């Protein structure tokens, strides 16, 4: 299992291949990639603040929970911080399991936890300045299903 918290971009394809090739005996690999939406030109970019140290700890804890709960064979989380342009990848999750149900569930579990329990704060850069992204009630509610 691997956690990368970094400022620079990552290569979704290269990471996906390395992850899939590095797992032994998996039948299912799921990846999720979050991208900066441009909302029809209204978003010029994004700035992501984080809490160094706690971020890595919080994500590692989620991954251990996911592994125990869904019998994961492996998992990967990459999350960027700093300034990002429109359509740039923000983060990715990859999960590997014997069967598809576990791989999907673990990826969704990790995403729900990353949204609301990993110390990142997003600010959208629009034509009229920067706005902190508000946490959504539905994201908090999504945790209720686990």
């Amino acid at each position, binding site marked *: 299992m691997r956690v990368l918290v970094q400022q620079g971009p990552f290569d979704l394809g290269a990471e996906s291949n390395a992850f899939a090739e590095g797992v032994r005996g998996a039948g299912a690999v799921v990846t999720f990639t979050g991208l900066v939406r441009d909302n029809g030109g209204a978003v010029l970019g994004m700035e992501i603040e984080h809490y160094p140290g706690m971020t890595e700890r919080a994500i590692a804890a989620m991954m251990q929970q996911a592994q125990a709960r869904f019998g994961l064979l492996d998992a990967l989380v990459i999350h960027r911080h700093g300034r990002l342009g429109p359509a740039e990848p923000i983060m990715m999750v990859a999960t590997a399991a014997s069967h598809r149900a576990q791989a999907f569930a673990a990826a969704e579990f990790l995403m729900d936890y*990353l*949204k609301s329990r990993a110390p990142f704060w997003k600010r959208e850069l629009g034509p009229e300045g920067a706005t902190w992204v508000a*946490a959504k009630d539905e994201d908090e509610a999504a945790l209720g299903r686990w």
Partner: protein
Amino acid sequence: MIEVLYFAWLRERIGVNRETVDTKAATVEALIAELVARGEGYALAFADRKSLRVALDQEMAAFDQSLVGVREVAFFPPMTGG
């Protein structure tokens, strides 16, 4: 002495991202009360308790939790990762 960190709009309202606070506050609540007394920026930052989260030594915590042995307190709004 406790290291206090602020993130996102709490950091902006207070104007610093971290400071060392000389305090005898027994709980998070008590620490917040001390900080709020420091001025308008702090008062504004801590005004909306529903939008406030706290971590003690990098673990999420509740406002009534004790600060005994705690070295690092972080205040921030709800997280928006992913």
